[in-house]
């Protein structure tokens, strides 16, 4: 079975500036990959390219075996992207957002599991309210629910846990972990929260100046938890790269 995400030699950016300078990254099924990096290192740009929001200048992106450039519709059918809270349609209700997203993915119905998650996250009272009236955290929850519609092989999250209350954050992390452990999806999460990367991810990739500088595998992460932690290791790697 093809990996949910396979990125090779990716170059691209905004306007004339190359933010990504040859990124190679694989997210396997049943794998949670956390993407770390300093501000401006290209995390969000990489995610934008992976979900088809940004056209790369060079390189290939395959989602569940489908080339994003050649077979975009099939690739996007296997993809769930948690859109940023401020980019959600402000005048539609949460229910309408779910309906439109499900129709866009050509689903027959909204997944019962997603509705259960909405209930558990306390989103049900907000279903008929306009997005503009929701708090930042509530909108973040809605963004994740939209991403999880249609059993995507790849779930792409950009700083999704920012603004979530601790209980909701834990619930969501457990849900994602269950999906990953069941081999139903691969998760790519760009974040600055080292605790999530250290305790929940299977692999941590460090992006520096548009390239993957280092990857910590599961065993290395376990060793780091016993030692100085990911924070120190990250700082050392970045210092060495800058030197």
């Amino acid at each position, binding site marked *: 079975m093809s990996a949910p995400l396979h990125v090779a030699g990716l170059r691209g950016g905004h306007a004339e500036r190359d933010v990504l300078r040859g990124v190679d990254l694989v997210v396997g099924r049943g794998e949670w990959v956390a993407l770390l990096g300093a501000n401006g290192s290209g995390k969000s740009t990489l995610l934008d390219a992976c979900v088809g929001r940004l056209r790369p200048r060079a390189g290939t992106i395959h989602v569940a075996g489908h080339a994003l450039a050649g077979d975009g519709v099939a690739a996007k059918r296997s993809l769930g992207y948690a859109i940023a809270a401020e980019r959600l*349609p402000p005048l539609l209700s949460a229910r309408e957002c779910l309906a439109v997203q499900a129709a866009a993915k050509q689903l027959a119905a909204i997944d019962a599991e997603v509705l259960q998650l909405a209930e558990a996250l306390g989103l049900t009272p907000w279903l008929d309210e306009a997005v503009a009236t929701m708090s930042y955290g509530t909108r973040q929850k809605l963004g994740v629910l939209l991403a999880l519609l249609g059993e995507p092989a790849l779930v792409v999250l950009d700083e999704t846990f920012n603004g979530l209350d601790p209980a909701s954050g834990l619930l969501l992390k457990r849900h994602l972990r269950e999906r990953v452990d069941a081999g139903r999806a691969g998760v790519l999460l760009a974040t600055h929260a080292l605790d999530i990367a250290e305790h929940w991810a299977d692999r941590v990739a460090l992006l520096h100046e548009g390239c993957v500088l280092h990857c910590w595998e599961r065993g290395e992460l376990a060793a780091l938890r016993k030692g100085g932690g990911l924070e120190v290791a990250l700082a050392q790697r970045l210092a060495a790269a800058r030197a």
Partner: protein
Amino acid sequence: MRWRSDSEERETEMRNESSGRPRRVEANGVRHVHSFLASHAFFLAPSANPILLAWRFERRRRVRQFFARRARAGTLLALIGVFAGIAAVALGQRLRGDAAALVALLPAHLLSLAVAATLVATSAIVHGRRHAERQWATAWLASAPIAARDMRAALRRRLAARWLPAAVVVLVLLAAAGTVGAVTVAAPIGAVALGFAGGAVIGWYAGGRAAHAPSVATLPRLRQARHEHAFEVTLTALGRWPFAQLRAALAPRVHAQIVGAALVGMPMGIPAHVVVLALLLIATALGATALLNAQLAVIPRAADWLRATPLASGRFTLALCRRALAGQLVAGACGALLLAALGVAPVRALALAAAWLAWVLTATACALARRHRTGPLRVELVAYAALLLALTATLPAALAFLLPALWWRDGRRMRAA
């Protein structure tokens, strides 16, 4: 270096205040410069107003970015040149013909002219001020300690920079029309100038309340009953979005003021049914314009949201634009009927409605091309150029002025969204 005593500090502060230099504030023994930016007058010259400075930097950057792409700038300048030439020639011809008679009518309708100018200026200033204040409320400088006086000054300058040249152009054109038509237009120019000035003052004082109104309160009530417990999988909400945007953007008070002023400005002796038809026509035009604005604002947001889904462009376009375009079709038909009822030749009325619909279609297509599939700007330029050429060849010369202005405005609106 010797630290000055407290009394010396206070003296310095008083001297600074009396000389208009930046004020120092003492707090808990720590010296704070009241405004870091204001203390660097050489850097801020010629203005120390931080809002104006930020706007100037933004404007400069936009201009640089635009001219960095020479091909784009060249194409646009060439297009502007071509259309300005066409417009000048066409206007000259019209003025020598029928328009001379039209200009001769102006001195007899000074009140109507003044009211029309007041309406235009009021609307422009009200919308300009509200838009700027709404932008300001979420801008990065919103929490900076900037005096309300400075903010108002910045707004005044911004509005003047935007609308004063347009007002001057109108007055110059009026003067030129008087020269060509050999008619004394001093009184009409005075009436229009007075209307502009009065409208600007009214607009300034009427338009400054939006910042206090909570934006959430103006959101339309969503239809809940039908979807109470159901989870339909449908794109129909996309089609409703432009109308929800339209309802959120409506300003009934301003529109009522416009219609009221239009009533006052109607020349005496006009039959009541004509007044009603004219008011209906104004309402139709306002509605159609507001719907187009709403659609242009919604397209980029919807495209941004749904770009990462497998939704095909055709389905996206159909779902998002079908209802709004049907609304425009109805508005166009109503407009044509009203124009015909007002005595305009049916063919001409239909041509005007068709021109509006062509404009709506082109603007919508360009917005879709630009946002949904990152279409190149060349396509947009070619589409607008073809439309403008077609319309200027068939409709009065006024379109040559009106349509580039609409193009500029629509483009700005899309970029802002």
